[in-house]
């Protein structure tokens, strides 16, 4: 990552609608971020103009639409709940694009993009960018049929997305670990930690594995070291050396403690 491309300023909330219960679709007008974003990178978004909540929220980029950055946000706490209350046209501080995204795909390789829940966000951006140019399939695991609206949204961009659910009410019963079918040269993944660890455990060792890891985030530019991930090369920053990392280097047993 090169910090010289980081921009921080006011993004304007343009499009804002609930996609399903507790999931918001946001489009933020921020040309400087939109022009530079690469799949797998993220932004830090302020949820309040005041100093409370203090930290910006790290959000994966789901795509770019003209000069807008597309974000899908799961409402999980006070910060993201505040986002629900904002009217269109609100100016929000945005810092980005940040982090190390997915490696550029290569001709002749077969890619599986495996996600759990809203972990699909960075993979959606990757597919929108490269899906038609390279051999890529998307596999998404969700808890149940209540996630169908997310599937409908995703099908606009990934018509042949394969969805599975924990209780079998949407697609096959199972999750991306239990429903792995096919031969892949490379797997990119994002979602809950147990899923990412599970994929690492069940993928053959010759398959390259690039998970996008979530961490509590401070500065986003490699200064505070608040977001480190334990790896064979020491503690690496999710905001600079990640969030997409070589999954074979991650010390999963330590990370999942």
């Amino acid at each position, binding site marked *: *990552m*090169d*910090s*010289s491309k*980081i*921009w*921080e300023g006011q993004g304007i909330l343009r499009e804002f609608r609930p996609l399903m219960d507790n999931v918001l679709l946001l489009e933020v007008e921020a040309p400087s971020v939109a022009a530079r974003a690469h799949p797998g990178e993220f932004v830090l978004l*302020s949820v309040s103009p005041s*100093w*409370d*909540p*203090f*930290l*910006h929220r790290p959000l994966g980029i789901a795509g770019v639409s003209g000069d807008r950055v597309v974000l899908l946000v799961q409402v999980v706490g006070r910060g993201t709940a505040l986002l629900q209350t904002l009217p269109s046209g609100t100016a929000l*501080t945005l*810092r980005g694009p940040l982090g190390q995204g997915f490696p550029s795909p290569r001709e002749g390789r077969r890619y599986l993009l495996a996600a759990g829940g809203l972990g699909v966000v960075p993979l959606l951006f990757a597919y929108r960018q490269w899906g038609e140019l390279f051999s890529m399939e998307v596999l998404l695991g969700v808890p149940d049929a209540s996630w169908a609206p997310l599937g409908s949204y995703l099908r606009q961009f990934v018509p042949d997305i394969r969805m599975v659910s924990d209780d079998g009410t949407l697609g096959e019963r199972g999750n991306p670990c239990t429903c792995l079918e096919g031969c892949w040269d490379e797997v990119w993944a994002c979602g809950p930690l147990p899923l990412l660890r599970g994929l690492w455990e069940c993928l053959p060792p010759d398959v390259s594995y690039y998970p996008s890891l979530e961490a*509590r*985030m*401070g*500065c986003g*530019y*490699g*200064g*505070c*070291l*608040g*977001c*480190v991930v*334990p790896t064979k090369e*020491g*503690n690496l920053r999710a905001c*600079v050396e990640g969030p997409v990392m070589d999954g074979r280097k991650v010390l999963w047993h*330590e990370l999942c*403690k």
Partner: protein
Amino acid sequence: MEERCCGMSSVNSPLEISLGKTLFATPVMAASGVWPLERRLWPVQALEGLGGICSKGITLLPREGNPGTRLAETPAGLLNSIGLQNPGMKVFEATYLPELLRGNLPLAVNVAPQSEEEFQELFEPLEPWASRIAAVELNLSCPNVKAGGMSWGKDPDGVALATRLARSCWKGDLWIKLTPQAPDLPAVARAAEYSGADALVVGNTWLGMAMDLQKKRPVFERVVAGLSGPAIFPLALQTVWSVAGTVDIPVIGCGGVQSWEHAAAMILAGARAVQVGSGFLRNLSLPKEITEGLLAYMLREKFGSLGEMVGAGRK
């Protein structure tokens, strides 16, 4: 003017301020712990208005830092338990120090000895760079390590001993970064002054903790963590006021600075400069906003130079 007396604003800017042998173009510095060691990662937006940089805390040997959760948000603030993750002095000196100095900004190297025996070895690699380093900032205040750090800084004898040891190893400007956890902060400040400190950084994070209600145990593996952010500003301002009224050496205010008003308040209380830490997590333009705000305020209140403003709130 020496090479290190450099900065980014125009010559004779009213914001210029001297600290020891170094002239800082502005009184706004990046506090230790938020500025990347790698130059390619420097947030360029934060350079505008920035007068100096304090490096990450450097220990003799490399440290991986603390395991487990390292950050927890609090109302208008942040708890951290980073634990001085750093590459160790040898790698720092060989790899990162030359990069940091190329930045053309005065640099304070923050060092964190873990024992009395380490001082000599810790300072030695810095000696060849002495003419280019603005100061060594001796960290007697990190709350997130077992040895060294805050354990030195809480009582006057520990501060005096550590300051004397550092003084004997380092001929350049020596800043002592104090902890607000010291039960008698003025006594600790006096101890540092009498033992050879050139300036005092007041202070570091405040001790706090958080509880995970799901796991029914503390959020941080070391239980305690350091609280920073605007929530602590009134506490930090009081410590600056208290120390600036006690010692004759310069005081650098640090703690919760999130606006030009905060910086102005610390300067009026007696600080010659301020450090911004967590503030960068919310706002990369903070040095620019602080310097612009200070300039407008000085014009309005008829302060011809920053020096005139230092301690003006005490009269």
